[in-house]
């Protein structure tokens, strides 16, 4: 049986993180649950510990990209086969994880994205601006790489071993979701999407304020473009990664 890690990045999510942990454990009793506490100033870390999750405490707030990369480094060193990343704010439903894991196996993908549009399931009501953003990034990726990704902004993903290795070595720091897709596609990893339900946020504030959305779109576009022309080659990073991330023998899993 494969070792599964559920990684929950959380920044000041003390109200919702407990529910996410509980639901994830219910759905995947055999999986390890890791909360990446991204320098929260509230009781996120304590709450997660009370719920018996593993907690990675970051002393500085690194933002979503840096936090997620820590989880991938952890997974890589401790020999996990699959990482499921799910937001700590409760907008993703852990009930969808099994379907994503199944897709990871059946479709022989390296990364499965939980997408909110395909399949018409869900009833997720997003702001029109967000919809425009998703469409725009989707188009950008199709133009640049020629692959149709319906929901590139989704932070609900399941990653196999190859993707874990890639992310442990190299994860876009600032604008994680969209840029990491471009990065993976350029590295020849296979992506597929599975329709998921998405709720509105239970609590907390999105990392993207409404007023800054357009600015964000411009920044992410630039990040994507630069990733597209980036000098670092996949093979180079891979071999460097193999050297520095030797598999840890004392595993966390049971």
């Amino acid at each position: 049986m494969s070792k599964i890690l559920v990684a929950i990045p959380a920044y000041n999510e003390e109200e919702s993180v407990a529910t996410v942990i509980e639901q994830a454990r219910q759905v995947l009793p055999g999986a390890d649950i890791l909360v990446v506490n991204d320098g929260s100033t509230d009781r996120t870390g304590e709450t997660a510990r009370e719920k018996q999750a593993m907690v990675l405490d970051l002393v500085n707030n690194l933002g979503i990209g840096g936090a997620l990369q820590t989880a991938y480094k952890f997974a890589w060193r401790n020999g996990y086969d699959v990482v499921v990343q799910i937001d700590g704010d409760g907008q993703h439903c852990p009930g969808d994880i099994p379907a994503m894991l199944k897709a990871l196996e059946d479709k022989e993908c390296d990364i499965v994205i939980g997408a909110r549009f395909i399949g018409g399931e869900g009833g997720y009501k997003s702001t029109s601006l967000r919809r425009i953003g998703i469409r725009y990034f989707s188009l950008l990726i199709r133009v640049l790489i020629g692959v149709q990704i319906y929901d590139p902004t989704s932070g609900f993903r399941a990653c196999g071993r190859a993707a874990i290795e890639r992310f442990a070595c190299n994860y876009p720091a600032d604008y994680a979701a969209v840029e990491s897709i471009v990065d993976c596609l350029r590295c020849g990893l296979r992506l597929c999407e599975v329709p998921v339900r998405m709720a509105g946020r239970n609590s907390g504030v999105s990392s993207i304020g409404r007023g800054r959305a357009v600015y964000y779109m411009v920044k992410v576009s630039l990040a994507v473009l630069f990733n597209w022309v980036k000098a670092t080659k996949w093979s180079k990073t891979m071999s460097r990664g193999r050297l520095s991330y030797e598999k840890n023998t004392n595993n966390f899993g049971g």
Partner: protein
Amino acid sequence: MKRIQIILAVSSLLFTFSVAQLIRKEALELKYSLLWLFSGLGLAFLAVNPQTLQALADLFGVVDRLNMLFLAGNIFLIAIVFSLTIALSRASRRIRSLTQETALLKIELERLSGKPPCNVSRNDMG
């Protein structure tokens, strides 16, 4: 030599000296302060030899040599800010990986010290 030339030359040399002093006390790193050192010496040189400035102005086709000074100052400032941005990017990349390493080491330590911070450690002991 005009009075302003003397004032400029002396203050530039003082500035260079204080930069050197800071490097000596290790308050400044040499690699970030090279530009400042050269700029202090360059200013002192220009103060003593204003005809160099005139020659430069003629070379660039700048009518007023004072404008040449402003142009050179601007270019120099941009160079400094740019080098700082590069240094900052490198520093933030290092801080990121350090933060990640400490977190990974902390969780490893928690596990090794036998405190059960998570469900998995409990399983290990049982």
